[in-house]
């Protein structure tokens, strides 16, 4: 079970959070200019590394803020 540090509420149990997948996926600056391949990439392609992963969590049972976490996908260690 993960102990996740919410930037406002401090360390809380994983069950208070929901996962949001890879962090920092920017909405395309000019969506209508994208090819189908580029649009599919934006919608569907995400990194899936074995190792450190920059990801989104939301404190859904607390302050409800979204924030980024760096977590290792093998050890589940969360970088401080």
């Amino acid at each position: 079970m993960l102990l996740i540090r919410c930037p406002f509420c401090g360390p809380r149990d994983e069950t208070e959070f929901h996962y949001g997948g890879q962090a920092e996926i920017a909405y395309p600056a000019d969506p209508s200019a994208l090819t189908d391949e580029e649009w599919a990439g934006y919608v569907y392609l995400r990194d899936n590394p074995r190792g450190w992963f920059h990801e989104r969590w939301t404190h859904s049972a607390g302050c409800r803020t979204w924030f980024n976490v760096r977590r290792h996908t093998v050890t589940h260690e969360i970088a401080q």
Partner: protein
Amino acid sequence: MRHPDFLWRNPSPKSAYDVVIVGGGGHGLATAYYLARNHGITNVAILEKGWLAGGNMARNTTIIRSNYLWDESAAIYEHSLKLWEGLSAELDYDLMFSQRGVLNLAHNLPDVREGRRRASANQQNGIDAEWLDADEVKKFCPILNTSPHVRYPVLGATLQRRAGIAKHDHVAWGYARAADALGVDLIQGCEVTGFEIDGGRVTAVRTSQGRIAAGTVALAAAGHTSVLADKAGIRLPLQSHPLQALVSELLDPVLDCVVMSGAVHVYVSQAHKGELVMGAGIDAYNSYGQRGSFNVIERQMGAALELFPIFSRVRVVRTWAGIVDVAPDASPIIGPTPVEGLYINAGWGTGGFKATPGSGWVYADTIANQRAHPLAEPFSLDRFTTGALIDEHGAAAVAH
């Protein structure tokens, strides 16, 4: 007592093969077997970084069914189920395939509508499916709590009588022995560390046991497919998650069918040996750690105990997780990749075991004929660009 004969050789890799399959799980073993049996391609190696069938093949809950909603899925899973029905005889190995029936429970009105729609769709695709109301569910599975006074009452269920379970190890051993006998080299402890790609075509794999030239390279690595594809410069729409399961202590026979509930995230059967086998939903976060969070098990147990109060004093013996690769539409990806000669069979997510024979059959055909098998065509990588997704979240996202 005499030690039993080994079921397959343990050869050292040759310097070159016509086909190199990466991953010695169920799908890789079945692919090799059908390459040799159906297509006469026997200069084949399976490279397995650990030991044969030591990944998800050893970690799944062995449920086999074909009651998928969409035509494309129904076709490939039913092809697989038909192969299961003759597989023990074909491999001359008792796979303990038991068509004991699978119930998929409905707990609310949308579940009921979805279940009836699914049963109807299955029937139109020639797949056996029935809708049972709550009383009929109770008759089929008497220990199931169908009282209306629980948080998620059972309002009915779909039933596929031809569905059931098999003994996962026997499936792997049966395919491995048969593939080995046809000349396939099963090479364990051999990790693929990279690919040699020349002019857009794969020519060899680099491994922990040296370079191996290959006419065709076929990935069958389930949860680790993204890691391998990355070494070939291919990004895939896959995310790897832990999928947890557990077994109880051994019990006398108490449950003679398979019960699944997507709504409350649990599925249960009793293995031949006597343990209850229960699966959960995936852990939400990405992981390669082969373990998940305890709260998922706790939630799964809560659901199981509401459905089966009789299990309340049963002890859990062991929990574990496998790493499953899930595509955005919860359907597999089978076929060619942007690298010529490199094929992919991945994204089976939480439901790969049941597909083992069908997946191996169509993947072998795809590799042998250098084009997607008709049943694999809808599951191409480019569906994410064309938008022709096969959304099986209803069938696949949680319960398999």
